[in-house]
């Protein structure tokens, strides 16, 4: 699904990330492990196409990301990548449903009128559609962020520290949710975490060295 070769990224001349080679097949679920500062977020941003690495090859869905022009990269990102950010960053001035529709709108994909409601219903948020983000609990907001990430049926679903602020039970529920949604879209799932509690759940793990 994606191939990373000889990837290096540096901030201000200091190496923040270095990967010799790593690839994953479509539909696989991976955990990216590593202490903070090991470049987990940087790697997710590079795979999402919002950060250009200093050096190396990144192919996502057969597409070499570094060769895409900015606008093509925007389109690629909208159609292939869903990302759940560590801080969910819902748009505060828009309702829950509009936050999800926002992803559809900017993807410029053919409009699917009931898709947003469908996704919200699936995540148990049907009655929250007209609420604003500040009216939601942390768990509800996270589910809205997941809904926004999967509404366009991405082929690559990324999640950055999704369990870091949750207790054990909620952490497991969130992982269930992400895995279920990834399976439903047949997406490759990548979860970046330093949360030791969830290590045992995933067979496929990629360790970023310090």
């Amino acid at each position, binding site marked *: 699904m994606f191939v990373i070769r000889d990837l290096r990224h540096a901030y201000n001349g200091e190496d923040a990330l270095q990967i010799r080679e790593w690839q994953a097949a479509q539909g696989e679920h991976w955990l990216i492990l590593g202490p903070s500062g090991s470049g987990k977020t940087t790697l997710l*941003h590079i795979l*999402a196409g919002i950060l250009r690495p200093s050096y190396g090859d990144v192919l996502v869905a057969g597409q070499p990301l570094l060769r895409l022009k900015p606008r093509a990269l925007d389109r690629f*990102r909208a159609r292939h990548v869903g990302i759940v950010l560590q801080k969910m*960053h819902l*748009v505060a*001035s828009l309702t829950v449903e509009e936050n999800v529709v926002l992803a559809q709108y*900017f993807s410029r994909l053919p409009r699917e009128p009931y898709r947003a409601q469908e996704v919200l219903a699936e995540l148990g948020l049907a009655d929250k559609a007209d609420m604003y983000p500040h009216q939601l609990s942390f768990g509800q907001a996270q589910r809205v962020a997941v809904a926004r990430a999967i509404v366009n049926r991405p082929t690559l679903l990324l999640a950055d520290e999704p369990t870091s602020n949750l207790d054990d039970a909620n952490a497991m529920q969130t992982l269930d949710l992400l895995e279920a949604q990834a399976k439903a879209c047949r997406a490759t799932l990548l979860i970046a975490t330093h949360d030791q509690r969830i290590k045992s759940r995933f067979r496929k793990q990629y360790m970023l060295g310090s």
Partner: protein
Amino acid sequence: MTLARISFSYLWQRRLSTALNVALLAFGVAAVTLLLLSSAQLEERVYRDARGIDLVVGAKGSQTQIVLSSIYELDVPTGSVLWSEAQEIAKHKSVRKAIPLALGDNYAGFRVVGTSHDYLTHYDARLVDGKLWQEPLEAVFGADVAARLRPRIGSTFVASHGFATSGGEAHNELPYRVVGTLARTGSVIDQLVLTDVASYWTVHAQQKPAEGELVAEPLPDDGRTISALLLQYASAGAGGELPRFVNAYENLQAASPSYETARLFGIIAVGMDLLQGFALVLMVSAALSIFIALYNGLHERRYDIAVMRTLGATREDIMALLLFEGIILACVGAVSGLLLGHILTSMLGFALRQAQQISVTGWIWYSSELWIVGIALLVGVATALLPAWRAHEVDIAGTLARG
């Protein structure tokens, strides 16, 4: 979902700031509109009143005062002109039209003007009711006077001496009779009570108590006077020698309406410029305020912008979003300012009408108002430009990594 919907949601989220910015811009636009409407109407009116009058003859004195008192009925006359001398000037070969004006009395604060039928024809005044005066002490009411006093044809009234409502001695023994009312002309005539010039001679002869007996008879021919004589030249080039001809009389003074009005506008222009500058300051501060709101908003919204980019929004989408907000603010501000300006102008017109001055209406639209809207829109775009560019340049990964 459209960019407009997203822009509106942001404006709605900061509705207090949005309302204040719109109000600030609206006040600026309203002030400019008010100035534009009132000065354009004032100018139109001043030129309409003076149209076709090439020279005014009055008693020796200030030329400005002669023009103001005769054409615009705004000042007191400089003195009296002997009827015999006025007729000599009227018969000059370069004069096509000569209209006498006798001033000095009022009825209920409206000036009573003794003149000839030519005065009415000059301003295209038509009767709506009754007939024109045929003999002394018959009077015709201008449209504003008639609207205010609602006289019955055939009723009588008493004029008082002077130009103000109170204080003047009333000419009790010789009442006027209303014989007609005029249609609105949009000129000075609307505010006048008109009568034959001979009415003045009758009324004022009777007022001379020196002879003992009160006689309702015209003054002897050589004692008759008027206040001013309005002249129209036989042809554009014909009047060259007339001012000198008039000024050669010991007691007479010629005044040029076009010269005097131009001079007056020169004086008024200073005040207008000052007001315009004030309105401009309002608009500039509105622009600054919108700029500050958008720029600060940008800082609060950097995560939203980064998220939208992550969802696939292009740099241009983000830029359009910010520009849209500036344009919406400017549009709403411009349109409400324009309406407010018209409302204020009609309120001004109402106040002026109460003061029996020049009539101004708010329900008139000038093409130059499109300029105001255009400039307001330009302000909206210009103030949004820098914030929009900063939004265009937001570093997505950097912003998200920090947040």
